[in-house]
Each structure stands twice: as structure tokens, then as C-alpha cells.
């Protein structure tokens, strides 16, 4: 055809490619160039790997007390690289195991919050009207619940432990995601490709599933990478207060709690878990920054 458009606009820039580059791939490509985000990614990966496999590799069991080595400061000699706590347990092993708990809670709660939040927000935003009003008022009510109060009530019912704080955090974490996704949906709803979908005979729920939700994932990913540190902090805070994870299970929160009490005599018991927590939080924040810059809506 003589007037067939014969050049893709990116072809001459990137060289011939067979499969297309989705905006997702483009974005991740951009992120790879962000040094701080990559550093964050590497550090986080190291910490996750250490927490996952460390306890199998380390010679010490985190629950094994060695009464001969109570509160030893960090030293290479003797094998306790980061020292021991006041029950003679190797701190490194404790921190890694605690990390498992903290990271697990962080990731799990965030995933649950994302799934619930996206579905809820997209439906509310897309259907609008009474549906939207009712759904958002429920969100308002839940928002107004004082968090600690809610947690305390739950622990009274379910007892202390991981389950209570997971439920408590999860029950409230999805709220902001729902609000974000609803806002996104409201602006997407009027875009022409949604009108085209309706004109093409697509059923409303299908539109939400196929068109709305995939297009809200960008900002949600960015927000989620900020949520994980929040959850870890939240869990640490609750455990520090004694409401969350209980002995002999450890989390970074409980370790920091213990470390704070021994701050004068054995500062490493506070510093080591604190450093791990801080490193994780920093990494997550840098990653979140990188994601946000890479997927900025003003791309192109």
C-alpha cells in the first residue's frame, strides 16, 4: 500500500526489535540506570537471602543459649560475629531469624493489602454512584478506627502473636491503596480507550479487570514499596510494645526492644538489629524512589 505507514517511531532509536517494549519493560530499564535504586535492590537482596538461608548456614541456633557466652560483644574470635544477647544466644542468628519474621509480615501484609485494595478501589471508582458512596463511607469508618485500640482489642480476642498483628495491620493497610486506586480509576474511566471498550460491548466487570486494574498497578507498586517498610516498622513498634511477636520467636522489633533495655551495658544488642532494620528501610525507600521516577506518568 503506497500510503502504509512504514516506520515505527522507536525503531530507529533502539534498533530493530521483534517483540514490542511495553511501558513496564521501558520503566524497569530506566530503573536499572538509577544507581541508588540499584544499590537498594542489591542490599535488600542480600538481606533477604541472609534471612532466608542464613540460619541454615550459621553454626549457631538462634534459640540455643550458651551460658558460657552471655553478652559477649562482637568479635571474630569465638564465632559470634555480632556478639550474643543476655541469654547467650548468637545475635547474628537471632537477627536473621527475626528478619524472617519481620520481612514475612511486611511482604505478606502488603500483598494482602494490595489485592484487597486494588479490587475494592477499582470497583468503587468504576461503578460510581451509590456503590462508590457506600464503599467509600465504609473506608472512612475504618480509617477512623484508632489503630492501637484496634490491635489491643484483637489481641484480647485472639491472643498475642503474629496472627493478631497480621490481621490488624492487614485490615487497615488496604485502605489507602483503595483510595489511591479509586482516584486513578476515576480519571481512567473517562479516557477514550475505556469508552472504546464500552462501545465494543465489553462487560463492566471485564473492563475493570482487563483495562482498569492493569493501568493502576504502576502507582500501586510504588506505593507498595513504601508500605513494606511501614509494615515492618509497625510490627516492630507493636512488638516493642509487647503486643506482637512473643518469645521465643523474635522479630526486629522484639530484638530492638531487648537491645534498648541493655543499651548501657551491651549497646551492640541494640545497634545490630537497628542497623539491619535501617538498612532494609533505606533500601526499600530507594527502590520506591527509583520505581516512582522510572514509572513517572510524564514519561515520553
Amino acid at each position: 500500500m503506497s500510503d502504509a505507514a512504514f516506520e515505527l517511531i522507536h525503531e530507529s532509536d533502539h534498533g530493530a526489535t521483534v517483540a514490542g517494549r511495553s511501558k513496564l519493560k521501558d520503566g524497569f530499564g530506566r530503573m536499572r540506570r538509577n544507581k541508588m535504586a540499584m544499590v537498594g535492590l542489591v542490599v535488600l537482596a542480600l538481606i533477604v537471602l541472609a534471612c532466608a538461608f542464613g540460619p541454615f548456614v550459621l553454626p549457631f541456633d538462634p534459640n540455643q543459649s550458651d551460658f558460657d557466652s552471655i553478652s559477649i560483644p562482637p568479635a571474630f574470635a569465638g564465632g559470634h560475629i555480632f556478639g550474643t544477647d543476655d541469654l547467650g544466644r548468637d545475635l547474628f542468628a537471632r537477627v536473621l531469624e527475626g528478619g524472617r519474621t519481620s520481612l514475612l509480615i511486611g511482604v505478606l501484609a502488603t500483598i494482602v493489602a494490595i489485592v484487597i485494595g486494588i479490587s475494592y478501589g477499582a470497583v468503587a471508582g468504576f461503578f460510581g454512584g451509590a456503590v462508590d458512596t457506600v464503599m467509600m463511607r465504609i473506608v472512612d469508618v475504618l480509617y477512623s478506627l484508632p489503630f492501637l485500640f484496634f490491635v489491643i482489642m484483637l489481641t484480647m480476642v485472639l491472643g498475642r502473636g503474629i496472627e493478631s498483628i497480621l490481621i490488624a495491620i492487614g485490615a487497615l493497610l488496604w485502605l489507602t491503596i483503595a483510595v489511591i486506586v479509586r482516584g486513578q480509576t476515576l480519571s481512567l474511566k473517562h479516557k477514550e480507550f475505556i469508552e472504546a471498550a464500552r462501545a465494543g460491548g465489553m462487560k463492566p466487570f471485564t473492563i475493570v479487570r482487563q483495562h482498569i486494574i492493569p493501568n493502576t498497578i504502576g502507582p500501586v507498586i510504588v506505593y507498595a514499596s513504601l508500605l513494606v517498610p511501614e509494615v515492618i516498622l509497625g510490627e516492630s513498634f507493636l512488638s516493642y510494645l509487647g503486643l506482637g511477636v512473643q518469645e521465643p520467636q523474635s522479630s526486629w522489633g522484639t530484638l530492638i526492644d531487648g537491645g534498648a533495655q541493655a543499651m548501657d551495658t551491651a549497646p551492640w544488642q541494640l545497634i545490630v538489629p537497628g542497623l539491619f532494620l535501617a538498612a532494609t528501610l533505606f533500601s526499600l525507600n530507594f527502590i520506591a524512589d527509583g520505581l516512582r521516577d522510572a514509572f513517572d506518568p510524564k514519561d515520553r
Partner: protein
Amino acid sequence: MSEPLLKIEDLKVHFPMKRRSLFGGERRWVKALDGVSFELAAGETLGIVGESGCGKSTLCRAVLRLVEPTGGRTVWLGKDFSELDGEDLRLERRNMQIIFQDPLASLDPRMTVRQIIERPLLNFPNRESAEERRRQVGELMELVGLNKAWMDRYPHEFSGGQCQRIGIARALILKPKLLVCDEPVSALDVSVQAQIINLLMRLQKQLGLSYLFISHNLSVVRHISHRVMVLYLGKVMEIAERDDFYRRPLHPYSQALISAVPLPDPKLERLKPRMRLQGDLPSPLNPPSGCPFRTRCPRATDICAAEMPALRDYGSGHVAACHHIEM
């Protein structure tokens, strides 16, 4: 005379405005469309022209019931389209499709071209295999002038004109009888506009399509339309056969519109008699009483404020709504 494909009778779309105060006060309405009637035959293009606030965008959505009309009737293929609901409405949508002004915005950025074009097929499953769907997508891409090897690429990798072709392919895959075109070439470069206009005209001949072609560009409308309709603030000012309209526009607004379009010819431009309107377009929130055009019309008199003129036939289907037509 055979039954027209589409018959619009007194179509109204009134959007409610928020009440001023909590206690009573009259509810105010934005009358985006205020009683529009016209017909469209099979294989015909009706060009719809007008400026901001005339309601042409609302019209194309109201015809497809993407926006629900608040009054009037749509008769489609002899059936009352305005009465259809739910699944019946959804099934009927196969016959009428739409292409948009912003080519890139009308494509889901997260889907490949293949997914975008085949999506309507999935909305009305016909037990085709994935292979069969892929073949149809390829066929349509070639029909609209795209290389089918690109079907796994993403919209942002294409230019505006190519995106518009993708949109056209998507609109045609269900083999509709009517294509509503909402300013389809306005956002395209001039050298690309001609390609898309030619494509649309070729497809019309090949597939027997009818077009509702909305545009503010009177030159493009002249080229592609069989008949022309002029809207102003939600009301019809004039409808006529294309040549009749451009050679002998009856309504003063049509005359002003035609006079206002600058010709790419400096000599003709200099010698052209001009009819300039005073003032700006009134806001649709507060339309003038009687004939909405009277505030800028050189012929306006008292009766124009009192009474909206009816559409009268001046021979061979040329209708206009004006109290002061000069033949």
C-alpha cells in the same frame, strides 16, 4: 424510499448542574443537546460541524448510548434503540463503533496491538480459536495499512497516524454498519490527515459503511461527507446535501463559518468578502432564549429572541432553522 439506517428524533441530553443552595431553587441544566433530529442512510457520510459547546461530541456518544439521552428517540435498523437494555443493548453494539480524536489515548497502553484489535472478538465469543483470531487481526491490520508483523508491539511505539489506524482496525473487527468518527484527524499532522481520510473513504466503499463524521474542519468535512449538518449550542441550524451546503449555505451561522475558514491561497484570501461575527460563543450553561445564535447574528430581530425557529425545508432536503432566510 428505503428505511434509513439510523433515525434520530428530537434527541436531548441534559446534564443536571448542582443546585445552588440546599433549599429548593430551580434545578439548572446544561443542555448539551436540545432536540436534534436527522437521518442517516446506509453507505452515507453525514458530516457534523460546529464549534465549542455545539454538542457534537455529546451527540456521537448519545447515539451510541455511551451517554444516556434524557429525551428523544433513536431508531436503528427499524428498531427502537433507546428502549434496549442490558444484554440486548450490548449485543446491538456490534453494529455501531466509534473512533476518537486522540489516537494514543484511545488505546490501552498496557496491551499489544494484537490484544487491542482482537478484544472486541472476545467480548462476543464465537468459538474462534486463538489462531483464527490472530488471522483476523492480521487481515484487518493489512486492510488499514499496517504491517501485521507489528502486532505484538505497544501503542506508544507507533505514531499518531498509525495509532489511528489501529483504532480503526479495532472498530471494524466486528463488521459494524455504522462508524461514529469523533474528530478522527484533528490531532494528526496535515500530511498524515490525508492518508487517514483516504483510508476512511476507501473503507466506506469497500465495506458499505455509514459514517457520522464529527469535525470542526469544514474543508475535511467537504471532502468526505455526502450531507452536512450544522449544530450550535445543542440545536440543529442547517442540514443539506454537501455541494448544496457549500455553494448555497442558507443559515447565517453556516455562512459565517464558511467565510471564516482561511483558504490556502493568499490571492483568494485577500479578495474574499468577509462575514465576521461579533462576540464570543455563549456558554452552554446560559444559552440565549429563542434562537441560540441570535446574540451574534447580523440578521437578528425581536422574533429571534422570542421564538426558536423550526427547521423548514427549502427544497431537495435542504433544511434550516432561521426566521430570516434569504434565498
